[in-house]
């Protein structure tokens, strides 16, 4: 029995099956790798404005309604919390920090990044523990892809020729990095 056709078939079908998770992990890997430069999960924005607050005794909810109308927010607040002269109005993805004496409002808003937040959530294994088993299976699949890839091509473009050079380069890069950076 010839082995190479089987190797190719396994590599091909496993490769197709791995496409989805490879995109998830690669995109998330790039995003999280640069976490010091940006928030990979949320688009964070702030804006400041001043609201003319009505005089007289008003409930915190009334004040919050005036501020929301002034800010063009139609969403219902989840919470209105008062601490002395400061009022916090919390919505699902934004908070208004209000200084009642001056009417100054600082709005901070978080919008989840489309798809990337889910990818990061999966990549960082922050969901239910069951995901760990899928992630393990994917990692094992990648090992199988790499191993089967080694034996796919015969001849001078395979492991006894050009392939060996690229495999050596691929191994040399992390080894050289560890050696040159004095390792962990």
């Amino acid at each position, binding site marked *: 029995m010839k082995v190479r056709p089987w190797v190719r078939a396994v590599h091909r079908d496993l490769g197709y099956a791995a496409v989805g998770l490879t995109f998830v992990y690669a995109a998330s890997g790039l995003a*999280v790798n640069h*976490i*010091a*430069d940006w*928030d*990979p*999960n*949320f688009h*964070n924005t*702030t804006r400041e404005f001043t609201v003319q607050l009505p005089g007289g005794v008003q409930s915190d909810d009334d004040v919050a309604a005036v501020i929301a109308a002034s800010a063009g927010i139609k969403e219902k607040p*989840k*919470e209105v*919390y008062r*601490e002395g002269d*400061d009022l*916090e109005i*919390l919505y699902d993805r934004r*908070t208004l*920090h209000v200084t009642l004496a001056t009417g100054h409002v*600082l709005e*901070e808003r*978080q919008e989840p990044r489309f798809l990337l937040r889910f990818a*990061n959530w999966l990549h960082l294994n*922050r969901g239910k523990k069951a995901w760990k088993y899928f992630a393990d299976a994917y990692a094992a699949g990648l090992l199988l892809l790499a191993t089967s890839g080694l034996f796919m091509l015969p001849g001078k473009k395979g492991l006894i020729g050009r392939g060996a050079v690229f495999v050596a380069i691929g191994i040399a890069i992390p080894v050289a990095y560890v050696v040159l950076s004095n390792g*962990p």
Partner: protein
Amino acid sequence: MTAKISDRRTFLRVLGAGTVLTVLGGTYVVVGDADTRKARKLKLPDGRQRLPPGQSVIARLRPMGGQEGDPSPSAFKLKVHGAVDHPFELDFAALLAMTQVEQTCDVHCVTKWSMLDSHWTGVRVADLAELAKVKASAHHVVFEAASGYTANIPLHDALKPNVLVAHKHEGLPLARAHGAPVRALVPDSYFWKSAKWLTGIYFTETDRPGYWETRGYSNRADPWKEERYS
């Protein structure tokens, strides 16, 4: 065949030019950072360099992700427990009723940025420990946060006067991305020890490495010793 070789040469030229531009750009960013160069010349009162090795100065705190918790002040509860004689729970109003500390300090992230002169308001962990009457057998503290995040530090570090449970940054309530309503602040360790969305302070007799400490990061995390990884 000739066309293919020509295509490959073009590709390699573009790749080479891109690499050179990237390296030059990186060099410009590194060399052009005047704040970092200035900070490197400064010393702390105890003789340590103000800017720990390998760090660069940035102007604003960066969020650095994390599994976000509930930003609601009214839902906030801080559980102080473990090896203590008097475990207790604080709500946000009770936290604000305690002695408040205004503090200006530098913070250092393991990803190599530092923010100098950041301003914080909060309550000393030492004051909370005193209320809880920490047992003599306790030697470590675990900051507990949303979604099971934890970070551990030695008790003697946690009781330093600059270690806070902070609820304001730069005079404003903590932003959601920075752990609203309350986070830990441990300025003398890499910033992952300053757990965001804080929910508890657990005093323990034995060390309990936390979320990042069990994922290859240093248990001590001293920026001046560059203890980034274990």
